[in-house]
């Protein structure tokens, strides 16, 4: 087995992103993957250094395929990939420095949490298996003394065990594919803090998610994957601003929707109106916050009974479509 790769320099807490740090731990150049006629990932190039990097995209965008490519679980159809300077698919010893939380729910159901995490520690040749197992389970707030098999665990508990087995060998690069699935709000918060801490310690943490708010809380660098392509890359807040600046479409229902729409136009919070039937309209606004503050007041002022306000394009899919179309 080859020796350990050089340790990355710890990134300062709150660092803007790995691009600003030392040499990247992950490099993908022209990464492409197709399954028969379906192109899952198309010509994606990026590099990732220490810190938390989120892989963001709607369901089916290709995030999991990118994750699988990065871990070496599937070979690229085209392109180059280097993790810690090598290819984990060819060099098995590289997996010593990699931790993975896969998306699938399956675990060895007949094992206890300690056995499952201990198996990972043993296969990684961790010197003190029992100690490392207890420490990893403690990180995710589970007890090594729990004698129940994993088959009896809830989805959230399994998810935490999966995180523990990915961390038990103190990896340098950690891939987390939708790691917050099934967790309650308190555990989500705990996990987000844990991932942020791991990133701040200089590890390369790659988290995939299709939930925008989740990624926001990672406070990280973002790679936005849409339809298998890299749609945007950079600091989350910059991308979020970009998303917020786009025109938003909102559906309105009111007893006199024409008068309400005129009032909103006069107030300058909408930039376009389309009347749909007698009591419905679709309006475009560039500031959802201003629209929310104003719409009730305008309705009251114009003596219109407001029946419904419904965002029509607030899902990630439309946000991503906007980013791709820019």
């Amino acid at each position, binding site marked *: 087995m080859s020796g350990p790769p050089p340790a990355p320099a710890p990134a300062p807490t709150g660092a803007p992103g790995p691009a600003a740090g030392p040499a990247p731990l992950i490099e993908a150049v022209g990464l492409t993957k197709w399954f028969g006629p379906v192109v899952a990932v198309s010509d994606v190039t990026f590099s990732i250094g220490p810190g938390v990097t989120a892989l963001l995209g709607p369901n089916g965008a290709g995030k999991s395929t990118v994750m*699988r490519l990065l871990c070496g*679980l599937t*070979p690229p159809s085209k392109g180059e990939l280097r993790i810690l300077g090598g290819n984990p698919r060819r060099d*098995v010893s590289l997996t010593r420095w*990699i931790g993975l939380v896969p998306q*699938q729910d399956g675990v*060895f159901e007949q094992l206890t949490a300690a056995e499952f995490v201990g198996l*990972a520690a*043993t*296969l990684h040749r961790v010197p003190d298996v029992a100690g490392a197992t207890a420490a990893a389970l403690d990180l995710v707030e589970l007890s090594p003394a729990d004698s129940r098999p994993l088959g009896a665990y809830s989805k959230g508990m399994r998810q935490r065990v999966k995180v523990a087995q990915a961390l038990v060998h103190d990896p340098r690069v950690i891939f987390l594919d939708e790691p917050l699935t099934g967790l309650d709000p308190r555990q989500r918060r705990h996990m987000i803090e844990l991932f942020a801490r791991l990133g701040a310690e200089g590890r390369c943490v790659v988290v995939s998610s299709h939930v925008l708010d989740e990624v926001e809380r990672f406070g990280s660098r973002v790679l936005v994957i849409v339809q298998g392509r890299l749609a945007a890359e950079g600091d989350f807040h910059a991308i979020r601003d970009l998303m917020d600046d786009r025109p938003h479409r909102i559906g309105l229902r009111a007893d006199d929707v024409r008068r309400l729409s005129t009032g909103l136009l006069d107030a300058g919070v909408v930039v376009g109106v389309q009347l749909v039937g007698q009591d419905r309209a679709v309006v475009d606004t560039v500031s959802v916050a201003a629209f929310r503050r104003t719409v009730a007041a305008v309705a009251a002022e114009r003596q219109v009974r407001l029946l419904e306000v419904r965002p029509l394009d607030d899902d990630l899919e439309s946000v991503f479509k906007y980013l791709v179309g820019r």
Partner: protein
Amino acid sequence: MGPFGALYLTQLRIQATRARLLSLAALGAAGLGIAALVGRQNTTLAAGAEFVAVFGLAVLLPITALVVSSAGFGDTIDDGTLVYLWMRPVARWQLALAALLAALTIATPLTVLPAALVPVVMGSPSTLVLPALSAATIGLIAYCCIFLALGLRSKRALMWGLLYIFIWEGFVAQAGGNSARLAVRAYTQAVLTNATGVAFDLTTIDPPWSWGVPLAVAAVAFAYTVRRLGHHDIP
């Protein structure tokens, strides 16, 4: 315990489910029960050898090997747990060898032991015990290697394995000649024939081919498994 021991124990737990063990043990016990009934009427070496060949080598051995060894990787692919063994700094051949040894550990008492007990239960000459043991052991190694690879190759390993056992080995190979030489069963029966002098329907295969070919097939199937672990998608 080292990584290989952990892999072996994990594979034992994957393959040796209660349902599998009970159903396969029941199959072997049923065979021995039938052997006892046959032995009431015929205790000759030929009758004993024929029962070992027809039940032990043609049914119990391949079915047990299929059910157990195809689960080694098949079950982990089905439930997505293979990644927890694969994403570790462990050589691919060790993954495959641990699965194979676990399959042999489970299947040996379920197949080789009943095959060796047939002469005892039937009251046939004890000279049949060693040939039955040898034929069953060689066959078990070959079948386990083949079906271990099949479990990694196909999501429908059980179906393809049963088709091979019953359609190819059960019908096509019965035509004799070259088709029989493509059936593991022909070689295991040949080992039995060469040691006891009792001839069966399938083609005649002399040693060392009778034991060498199944072991060579096992080696090729094992090499294929190792290669596939290194080159194919891991779910």
